[in-house]
């Protein structure tokens, strides 16, 4: 055998889709978010995109979806890889149908996983990142309770990781009862820094190896 043989010139690789790292932003667009809060949030979304695409693997692996809740629940952005994500400009009005929003976010994740499985796409544990300045309002209490129970079951079975960020006047105690993880309190309207952190965290997750304990960056933008 010739020692000049270059295996990398003769061996071809399987074309598998990139593993995906789904992240739903579940955003409160109720009336109380009007003004500086919603503007800061919009600015934060721009930052999120900019930061994600700085990392070429994260740009291809992290998939972003946006669900808003006010008097109704809307899928503003269905799942899209970070490189193709075009941040929307959100406006705020109406009530806070948070329970329905949580249901919708969990539905989206379930559908997405089914799609991944049907197409042989490997994936990481999905994240839902909820941002609110209030508490559930304008929907039946049992909707919220059902959402909370479903969320807790999904967390327990590792189907999702759900994070809550409270802004300004958010009812932190109520939020703490809905999710499993302690809600984080955003300092002021520091959305930009928060989204820089979220991008860094998603990048870390999307490149983690088998059984890596993913070390998330320290949180400088809020408090537990």
């Amino acid at each position, binding site marked *: 055998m010739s*020692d000049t043989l270059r295996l990398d010139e003769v061996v*071809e*690789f*399987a074309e598998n889709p990139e593993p995906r790292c789904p992240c739903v932003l579940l955003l409160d667009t109720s009336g109380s978010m009007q003004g500086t809060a919603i503007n800061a949030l919009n600015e934060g979304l721009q930052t999120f995109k900019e930061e994600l695409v700085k990392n070429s693997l994260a740009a291809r692996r992290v998939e972003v979806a946006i669900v808003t809740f006010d008097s109704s629940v809307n899928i503003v952005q269905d799942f899209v890889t970070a490189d193709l994500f075009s941040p929307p400009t959100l406006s705020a009005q109406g009530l806070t149908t948070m329970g329905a929003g949580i249901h919708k976010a969990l539905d989206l994740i379930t559908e997405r996983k089914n799609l991944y499985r049907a197409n042989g796409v490997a994936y990481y544990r999905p994240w839902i990142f909820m941002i609110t300045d209030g508490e559930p309002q304008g929907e039946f209490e049992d909707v919220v309770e059902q959402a909370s129970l479903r969320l807790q079951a999904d967390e327990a079975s590792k189907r999702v990781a759900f994070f809550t960020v409270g802004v300004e006047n958010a009812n932190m105690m109520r939020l703490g009862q809905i999710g499993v993880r302690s809600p984080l309190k955003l300092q002021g309207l520091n959305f930009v820094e928060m989204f820089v952190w979220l991008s860094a965290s998603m990048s870390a997750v999307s490149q983690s190896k*088998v059984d890596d304990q993913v070390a998330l960056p320290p949180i400088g933008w809020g408090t537990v």
Partner: protein
Amino acid sequence: MSTTLKQMVHWRVVAASVCGTSHVKNEQLCQDAHNWQVLPDNILVAAVADGAGSAKLGKVGSMIATTAAVESVQKHEISRRALSSDDFVRSLLTNAMVAAKKAVEEEAEATSSSYDDLATTLIVMVATPEGVAVAQIGDGVAVARDYQGNLLALTMPDSGEYINETTFLTSFDSIDNAQLRLWRQPIVNVGVLTDGLQMLAINMAVGAPHKPFFFPLFEFVANIDDKSVAKEQLVKFLRSERITQRTDDDLTLVLAALHE
């Protein structure tokens, strides 16, 4: 006729483990390991292991596991005749996994470490000209090719629901949950690899090995003249830009061909 032919054949083997670029960057040791032996009667035993990235002593775990697994098979002084019994093959592979697990646990105790510090996957393969048997805990893949050119994935990566999870030898029920596969078919090639190469070597959607990946490599190992040159070529391949562009993980590849 086939008896004379088979007496003349022998295994040609080339294997390498190289450190992934992410580990080089972080000055970590390569956490993959491999070990193989050609035993009398044309029996090839090979083991590969991938120490967990989060385990402090992942490299130690994978080295100990592969060494212990190969030694365990070697100690049985097996013959191809004995391997014709499915029960014997099953107990041979189970004993190899038990020996590997015990060796890792003893190392953990000797160094006052936790089992998790030495967490590692493990694949053990026993191949003869008449067939191949594999036991696998965790990620990675073992493949074999028969005379007709059929290429079969004997095992599939066991990575749980999420791509960054898997099972480890050190988990309490690892041996009960191991994949065991026996393929009785005259074979010409076998290959074993750790998860770093999975996405390049397997068409994940259909769970089938990618022929254009394996066939040139099998051709290469069948035609080895000089073992050390061949190993160098394999290492060079695993470090080539085409590979490092696609994966930054540790990589292990064991390739074998029956040669007349």
